[in-house]
Structures are given as structure tokens and as C-alpha cells.
């Protein structure tokens, strides 16, 4: 950074473009509200009055095309699994998935006799953050989203991957 050091005023920060991009991505992950079951209510509660997700830049979207993060909130069944894949494919890159609740993580209480329940959404689409709980409290979801932000911050979108 020798060339750029001390060339500008005090309120200018010098940083890699890579980091700037991931910082910008991490602070406004608009989420696709994919609520299927009980967890959807907690997701709604997280977005509504008391917990207010918007204050950390996380805004609910109804269409996968406008979203960066897909929150799978609730049980995914076999009938739904095919649609989940379709919806995931409709999202624009870069895309992230949060599996909210034990159903989306592993099938939850339905893992044993649920002949029609998908035992974890990660059998169909890749998942970045798992939020445990049945259902998780809104605070837990917010924690999961903050974890996701950290994960996005670590990303290096411009760095060429080797190997």
C-alpha cells in the first residue's frame, strides 16, 4: 500500500476491491421469504415490529429473482422439494441459503416416520447456515443471519480460485 498511503484526506479508507465488494454484499442481504410452516411465523415476527430485521439491512422479498439469501423456514416435503430446487435456481448469483429450524436442517420431529418429509433441505440445495430450534426464536434467526454476514465478509469474489 506504499503508493497510496497518506495521499488522501483522513476520511478516506484504502482497501482491496475484493473486500469492498464482500462488505457491500454482507450489509444488505435481501432475503427471499420462503416460509413453509411454523418457522415462517417466527420469520414474520423477526421481520415485524419488535425485532425489526430491516435495521440491519435485511429486507424481505417475495420473489427469488430479487433476493440474495433464501431462508428456508419450515418443513420441506417431497412434493415441495422439486419446487425448492427450482426456486433456488431462479435466484441470481451470489446466493446463500439459511436453513431455519430443525425441519429444514434434518427433518426435525418428522425424521422418523415422515414418509413425505424431506430429511433436511441440504439433500436438495446447498446450505450455508443452519439455525437450530423448533422453531428458533427470532433472536436465533437474527444470530444466524449475522453469522451469514460474517461468512459473506470472508468471501473473496474477485480472487481467482486456484486448484
Amino acid at each position, binding site marked *: 500500500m506504499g503508493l497510496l498511503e497518506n495521499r488522501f484526506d483522513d476520511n478516506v479508507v484504502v482497501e482491496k476491491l475484493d473486500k469492498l465488494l464482500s462488505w457491500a454484499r454482507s450489509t444488505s442481504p435481501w432475503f427471499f421469504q420462503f416460509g413453509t*410452516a*411454523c418457522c*415462517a411465523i417466527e420469520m414474520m*415476527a423477526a421481520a415485524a*415490529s*419488535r425485532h425489526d430485521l430491516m435495521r440491519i439491512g435485511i429486507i424481505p422479498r417475495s420473489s427469488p429473482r430479487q433476493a440474495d439469501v433464501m431462508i428456508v423456514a*419450515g*418443513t420441506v416435503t417431497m412434493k415441495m422439494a422439486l*419446487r425448492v430446487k427450482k426456486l433456488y435456481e431462479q435466484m441470481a448469483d451470489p446466493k446463500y441459503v439459511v436453513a431455519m429450524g430443525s425441519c429444514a436442517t434434518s427433518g426435525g420431529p418428522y425424521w422418523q416416520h*415422515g414418509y413425505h418429509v424431506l430429511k433436511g433441505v441440504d439433500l436438495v440445495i446447498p446450505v450455508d447456515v443452519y439455525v437450530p430450534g423448533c422453531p428458533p426464536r427470532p433472536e436465533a434467526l437474527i444470530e444466524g443471519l449475522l453469522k451469514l454476514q460474517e461468512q459473506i465478509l470472508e468471501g473473496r469474489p474477485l480472487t481467482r480460485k486456484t486448484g
Partner: protein
Amino acid sequence: MGVVHGQEMVLNIGPQHPATHGVLRLQVKTDGEVISEITPYLGYLHRCFEKHCENVSYEQVIPFTDRCDYLASMTMNFGYVVAMEQLMDIKVNDRVQYIRVIMAELQRIASHLLATGVFGLDLGAFTPFLHMLRDRERIIDLFEMTCGARLLYNYMWVGGLSHDLPKGFVEETLRFLDYFEPKVDEFENLLGHNKIFVERTADIGIMPAEVAINYGVTGPNLRASGIKWDLRKDDPYSVYDRLDFDVPIGLGIKGTVGDSWDRFYVRLQEMRQSINIVRQAIDKLPKDGDVHQSMPKKIRPPKGSIYSRTESPRGDLGYYIESDGSDTPYRLKMRSPAFTALGVLNEIAGGWLMSDVLAILGSLDIVLGEIDR
């Protein structure tokens, strides 16, 4: 003047759509803007409730009933324990009964708050939704205080409750009711008499009483069609026969009896009645009594079957339980009120405009968890 028929178009709504209240797919046949047929496709949330019941013990069924209607878990528990207590011939003491009624009615308020709030949201009114969820959070706090869970409580057990009321619950509830009672009027003014809301719901999706009965529609939807039918009054269970309350019915104030606005208004009125019931139940709540008193050590009902109905916020909630004398149910069927309410959609939405479908669907207040089970 003849009828002009255009070309029919098939439109898919869902299974992922913000206005379908979950994962419901509607296949709508339209002639331009006018709807000719709606075919609902269910089962996107079929979680094999009845299969689970056959494989777990009677106590373990209760958490699964929670997860069926996740907006009214307390009343789902209530229906199941009432059925089980009839089957096993258990009498529970008054303290348990009154606590159950308090919980069920608070849950009814919470459920109706979400139902009316989301109904507004479907029609583009975002502010009432935030107001209603704010007040719902306060009820959730009361539940959390009692049993630690926010949404799925597993609170009512066969023959008793999981916990007694915590210290300060009664005061906190009364404080909430004092705060909430004027809020209902506020909601009525904010949403119910809003010009846009009235235009979009009054005279829309009229459900005549005969149609409602024939389709098995129950609860607030049936009462909005002008039939005074409430299981709490007509077939009283628990201690509802000792409480004094009204059953609000649809009067067609803004339009015709049985329209979408009436369904909304009946829910609003029921909140007022529930406040009234909770107050009475708190007055009559006995000071002493062990909530675990009549809980059986091992739940093993005698051979036989029972069909028992209770009034959930969505209507007649029936449990058909067949016992073969062992500690797991031989067969357990839940008769879901939202299932039958959704069945009537094609009948009452045909002929209306495309934009009215979501108004009608929102007014029916369906919960997919309970429809698909």
C-alpha cells in the same frame, strides 16, 4: 344481452406466493379478469401427522398437534386433551379448566390478530399488520412466561397442565387486557372502516348459509354467514357453560351477510368476546388446586373410539381417536376446520375478479399446516 366468452387462460398461484398463507397452489382458470374455476392443490406441507400418531405414545402426540395449527397451538392441545379425557373418563379440577380457558382465549386473540393482520397485508395495508403483530408479541410474552415457548407450547397435557401459572401472570394478563381492549376499537377504525378495505371486501365472496353448511365450513366463517353456531355455546366442553359471552354473527353491515368483510368483522368481535371471557375466567380462577392432580401415570385408554369436537379459532376441530388398549393410538384422525374452509373456495370465488381471489382467500383464514397435516 348475451354473455360474451373470451379465451380461457390458466394461471398458477403458488406454491410459493406471499398471499397464499403458506404453501398452497391455486390453479385459476380465468376468462380475462373473471374467474371461472379455481382448483386448489394441497399437500405441499403434508407432514404425515396421522402416521406419526400411530407410532408414538399418547403423550407424544401433543407436540405434533402443536405443529399442525401453529397459529393456535394452545387450542390444538386443548382439543386433543378434551378428547382424551372423554375417552379415559378423567375429571380435572377447576383450576386446570380455568387456566386452559384463559390460555385458549388468549390464543384465540393472538390467532385472530394474525389472521386479520395478514388479511390486511394481502390487500396492501401494511400498517395494521405491524400494529397487530406488536400486540400479538405481548400475548406471546404471556405464553413464554408460562411455559417457556413462543410458538409451540406443549402446555396442556392429558389430565392437567405442564406447569402451573407463574407468579405475576394474572396481573400481567390483566394489564395486557386493559391495554388491549381499546386497541380493538383502533383496529376497527384503522382497517375495518377504511374506505379502500371496505371497497375490496364488502359484497365480495359471499357465502350463503346453506353453502357453508353443505361444505362443512365452521367457526368464524360460518358465523359470518349468519348462523349462530359455536361449540363453546352449543356443545359446551370444559367450563364454557359457566362463562357468559356472546356469539357474534355476520350482519352485513357494509354489504351482504356472509361477505369477506363480515368474516373479518366477526373475528374482530370475537377478540372482544375473548377479552371478556379471559376476565371472567381470571375472576373465577380458584386459588388452589394441583395442576398435576389427575394426570395418569401411564396413558392407556380402554378399547374404543371417540369423536370429539372443540372450537378452535378456525372452527370445529375434531379428533377421532381409536384405541386398541395399548399405549399408542390405533388411529387418530384430525378433522381440520381450515381443510373444509378451503374446500369452499371454488364455490364462492367463481365469477369474481382476479384481484378478489386473494381477498376471499385471506378472509377464510387458512393455515396450511392444519390443512395438509
